[in-house]
């Protein structure tokens, strides 16, 4: 018999996405890669919002929140890419290890 998809499955997927995103952010040297990691983290959270709304029920708050997060992720990606562009212009590199201007 086919196994029923429960809330736990969704949460595991969300957690996996989050963990993978976190690892990507923490380990990628490429700034664009870091931004992609951030997208993964946000989407891990989005899976949770939608899953909880589906199983806990009551209203559409979780869906709306997921939509907001998607919009926010787009804006964040725009800003992030602009920063990466500026970073590249100043240091001819998008390696985050090289960009240590915040140290001082």
């Amino acid at each position: 018999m086919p196994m029923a998809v429960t809330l736990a499955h969704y949460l595991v997927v969300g957690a996996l996405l989050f963990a993978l995103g976190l690892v990507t952010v923490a380990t990628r040297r490429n700034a664009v890669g870091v931004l992609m990691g951030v997208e993964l983290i946000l989407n891990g959270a989005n899976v949770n919002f939608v899953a909880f709304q589906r199983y806990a029920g009551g209203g559409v708050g979780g869906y709306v929140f997921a939509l907001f997060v998607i919009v926010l992720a787009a804006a964040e990606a725009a800003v992030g890419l602009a920063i990466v562009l500026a970073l590249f212009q100043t240091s001819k590199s998008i390696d985050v290890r090289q960009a240590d201007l915040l140290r001082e």
Partner: protein
Amino acid sequence: MEHPVAVTQASLLWLIPALPLAGFAVNALLGVRLQKAFGKWIVHTVAIASVAASFAVALVFLSEMLGLDAGHRHLQETLWNLFTAGRLSVDLAFALDPLSMTLVLVITGIGSLIHLFSVGYMAEDPAYWRFFCYLNLFVFAMLLLVMGDNFAVMFFGWEGVGLASYLLIAFWYSDPEKAKAGMKAFVVNRIGDFGFLLGMLLLFWALGGAWAPRPGIRAVEYQPASELRPLDPAIGAADADALAPRVAGVKVGPTLSFRELRDELTVEETGVKERLLHTTLFGMPVLALSAILLFVGAMGKSAQLPLYVWLPDAMAGPTPVSALIHAATMVTAGVYMVARLSFLFALSPSAMGWVALVGALSAAFAASIGFFQYDIKKVLAYSTISQLGFMFVGVGVGSYWAGTYHLVTHAFFKATLFLAAGSVILGCHHEQDMRRMGGLAKHMPLTRYTYLVACIAIAGFPVANGFYSKDEILFRAFTSDHLALFGVPTPWLGPAIYALGIVTAVGTSFYMFRSYFMTFTGSYRGGAHPHEHNEDPHAATAAPHGPLSASVHASDGAAHAAEGEHGGPGASPHESPWTVTSVLVVLAAGSVLTLLLGLPALWTGSAPAFERWLEPVVAQVTFRQAGEGTEWLFQLLGVAAAAGGLAAAWALYRGGQSEVPARLKARFAAAWTVVYNKYYVDELYALAVVRPVVRLSALLFWVDAHLIDGLVNLVGALGRWASLLSDLIDRFFVDWAVNAVAWLFRAAGRSLRRVQTGHIQTYLYGALGGALVVVLLNFLIR
């Protein structure tokens, strides 16, 4: 005088002293510039105009006073309140009564003339403005002294004239001898002033002080002390007045005002007189004590024994100063003070006897020194002391009008003598030694005749004023049997003083005519050797000046002698300019004309004008009755004394030819040397007073240099050591702690800055680690 003084309020009295003050201020502040910009004329114009204007104002008040009847001649003006304490209220107030009016006229009148004289005398002095400025200051202070309505104002003036006198004696201050003479005058006067102050305060104490009521001074009860509110700051002059009880219209209580004091003492109902007569201090009657202490002040100011030593040295000042301050006005301040306080002195026979005795002794003593002096100004100085002695005899025996009259006559003839001497000094090119003069009669006729008139006046011939005052004084001395000494009645004292006085009169006549004959007769000896004179074989040995006695012989004007238009010392003498001679003529005329004020009752049938003029002001003392014959006899004796002195001087000194003086001197060389050296009084003072004081100050200096300075240095060293220690602590302890804190923070900062790598992923690890810890803790703590 059994009723209170009737006061007539007057306004603008203050103008009289204020005008010379204004003159002083102008010359003091602007004099040096005015003199440079416009010349000397503007300086003396300001000075003379201010004194002359003051004289004119005084004349206006004289006419106002003459319009009042005798009982109301007390003009008064209160400017403002000086201070108030309890019942005592002291005002800056001026009063003019016949006595002070007389003095004001003498000061401003003769003062103006002497200012005029100074124009010629000081013409060559570069510090011309300074001279006139001091002179005006003196006139101001003297007017304050005379016009002051109370002890406080009088004391301001009393100290002010002392200051002016000091400044003028030491006018040529670059000469140390003259500066020393000024200091001597000042110090000796201070001793007298201390007596004056003590007498004043003692009298004030005896009257009850400001607050504490003394039992006895009362006809009505004093208000209890608790009602006086002495600490009330709002208390004013009117309150003080209200607190003092009034008896018979007289304010009773402590006072410094002459008028109030006189009212209290003369109006019997107040009981103040009885109280004072019976108050004793350490067994001594307080009245006599305070009167004698006040007289000590007079002894200093008026150069009486034993405080006379400053006056001969004061001749170091310019001659007009000697004439104005040290003959006509300031030195008579003591006489004025005794006459002003006559109501006080008249109550105490002991004080009267003391005053008269000191006066008589000073008169005789100073006259004897005058015999052998060669410096013309020194002769006049000793003569001044002697004449002041006569004045004190007058006010001492209680003939206050005669003493004051002698003050006036003396002011005229002694000013004449001094100014004539000044003219002679000018004419002889600043020579003061009479041995270098002689024969000036034909060179300086005006000076000669005025000097002669003044000599006649001082000697006591009835054709000039001196006779009238001196004769009255001596006659009153003879007829006084009310004197006492230290509480013991001494009816013989009056006649004894008379005997001393008449002998002194012979001496006065002798030394004055001696100076006249030496100066004006014979042949001129200036430029020749001074030792050729018939009287001087031992001069060189006879002048050992003590180390501390100023020797100011023949030094007047040394600062500007023998220069300018005057020739050398060999040039012939010449008559002085008109500013000098005209003043001499006016003063000599005054010396004659003032005799009209004192024509004796014996001749005219009525009391002398001056006696009637002063009658409402001074205390009346009763003298022993003497017949008309006696009075005639005494007048004859007076003339005989003058004639005797004249005859002796004529025989010994006329023409400078007689050999007798030299022989007499050789015969009595020892006595001559003692008298010539002024009885070695200066040396005695040096030995008895000055040297111990110098020793004491040397001792004190040693104490200061060794003990005090040692202590101070020790304290200084201790302070240094303490600061060294403090420095060490500061450097090695405090600084170390401060630096340690700084190091600590630097080290912390250094290690912490490693955290800030700038790598975004490092920060992320930190955040993750933190989150992990929170999660783990969440498990652990639960």
